[in-house]
């Protein structure tokens, strides 16, 4: 069994999305402190921008909060105008934290995944 796994971010982190106007912010919080350095290395501004470009995103700023084992992504123009003009069901982009957690993959040691996680398949 390999000691390194490539998994959706959802296996090692959780997060929450919020909106202000046409700007979304999505937090990414490591379940285990040992996973945090891998998130810093692999969950980059470019990757997140690529994930939201189809919605019109123009820029991503990543803030690093080592005390909280957390990253905060601020994604400009991600909400197709937000509550003022979007036509999607989810005008505030509240569901988008799970787009990020689901589609960005990370490669981490097994020990970065919480024990008993469904992703470990034990």
């Amino acid at each position, binding site marked *: 069994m390999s000691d390194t796994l490539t998994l959706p971010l*959802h296996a090692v982190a*959780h*997060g*929450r999305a*919020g*909106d*202000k*106007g*046409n*700007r979304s*912010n999505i*937090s990414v*919080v490591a*379940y285990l402190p040992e996973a945090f350095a891998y998130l810093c290395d692999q969950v980059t501004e470019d990757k997140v921008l690529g994930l939201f470009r*189809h*919605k*019109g995103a123009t820029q991503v*700023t990543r*803030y690093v*909060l080592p*005390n*909280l*084992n*957390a990253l*905060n992504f*601020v994604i400009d123009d991600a909400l*197709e*105008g937000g*509550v*003022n*003009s979007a*036509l*999607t*069901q*989810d005008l505030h982009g509240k*569901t*988008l934290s799970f*787009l990020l957690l689901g589609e960005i993959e990370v490669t981490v040691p097994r020990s970065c995944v*919480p024990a008993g*996680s*469904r992703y470990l398949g034990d």
Partner: protein
Amino acid sequence: MTASTVYIGSGAGFAGDRIDAGLPVVETLARRDGPRYLIFEVMGERTLAIAQRIKMRNPELGYSPYLEPYLRGVLKPAKDAGVRIVANLGNANPLGGARKTLEIAAELGIDGLRVAVVLGDDLLSFMSGDEVAALPAVEGVSIAGKEIVAANAYLGARPVAEALTLGTDVVLVGRTTDAALVLGPLIHEFGWTEDDWDRLAAGTLAGHLLECGGQVTGGYFCDPGFKDVPGMDELGFPIGEISADGSIVITKAENTGGLVTRATVTEQILYEMHDPAAYLTPDVALDVTGVTLADDGKDRVRVLGAKGHPPPETLKVTVSADGGWLGEAELTYAGPNALARANLAADIVRKRLASRGVKDPVRVEIVGAGAAFDNDASDRQRGANMPMNGEYRLRAAVRTDDKATAQYVNDEVLSLFCSGPAGGGGYRCSITGQVNTASVLVPRGPVEAQAKAEEVTA
């Protein structure tokens, strides 16, 4: 004598939050000693425009439609226990809300309930629409040329603290920062000065953590199998225990579900936060980059290390204008080949709206095939390899200034019943009036000069 610890609980984190969540909070606060408060945060960006329209039709109304349901359940137990209520249930009409509160108190047989209000957030009461339209915009749609329905500045915590000096049981505000509902009582109890930046920052952070109600106690957090939360059907709402030195413990109402952990607190710290070193309010610029969390027993997390810096010289103002109509219609296809039938239905609607000359922005998509993460052109959905058999829901949406166009788009979905693919069912539609908002900045001096607190009597 200055208190050592102030207890502040939340009864609602948005308009539509559980009506009965506040009572266990009051019951828990009743078992504590010292200054105790219950807050209700029920305002969104669009709330004031909707409330202003209601007030135009009836000058007695325009306070939150949730004022009565939220207060009715807690007013007596809170008064009996000495728990003071601070709430933005005033919306566009804090005075009307105060009179309604006194009416409810009389009806419930509560003797001597006293209510104060904070006024002065409504720019249109002392500025013209043209003056407001000329303020520099920071976000949102252009409001040039549109009739402004509401323009309200986010006041800080000082007017809330001033209202509390009047000694009333209830303080109703309109537009203040959400955090001011918590920082106001802390300034009142601890006498924090205007340049005590780190303590003001701590109080603002406490407010930020409490203002969304159950979002810090496991609500909007639970992800079954990954982040489990017990008893979400009886989710306990949060209580902050804040000390004079600015240290915070977040806990929750006793005998309820939910949980408070470092993870729930972390998610809420970063909720709707952009630069974590500069969360701007009229009271302080909050920096959470040095914040640390520590377990402090079951369902108790200690929050330390908020830093503060001087706030901006401007206040944020939400300006609202009419935003036309949003039409939405949906129809479900299920079972064998459902996706093919739903896709055909979507194509039919797109073709007909184009050939019949609908020029307004339209989105036609299939819920169940990745719509939530998609864009208006359904680019992701087209590339996805979803199963043909299943359950899919066609959805069409339009934004238009012409209500008849919204009706027409909805009718094109409805007409699929007899003229579309086989087996469509479960048609639902709505046409809702929209409010557009922009954020603009106003110099704080002249606005804050208008802010005042006063007691309201029946």
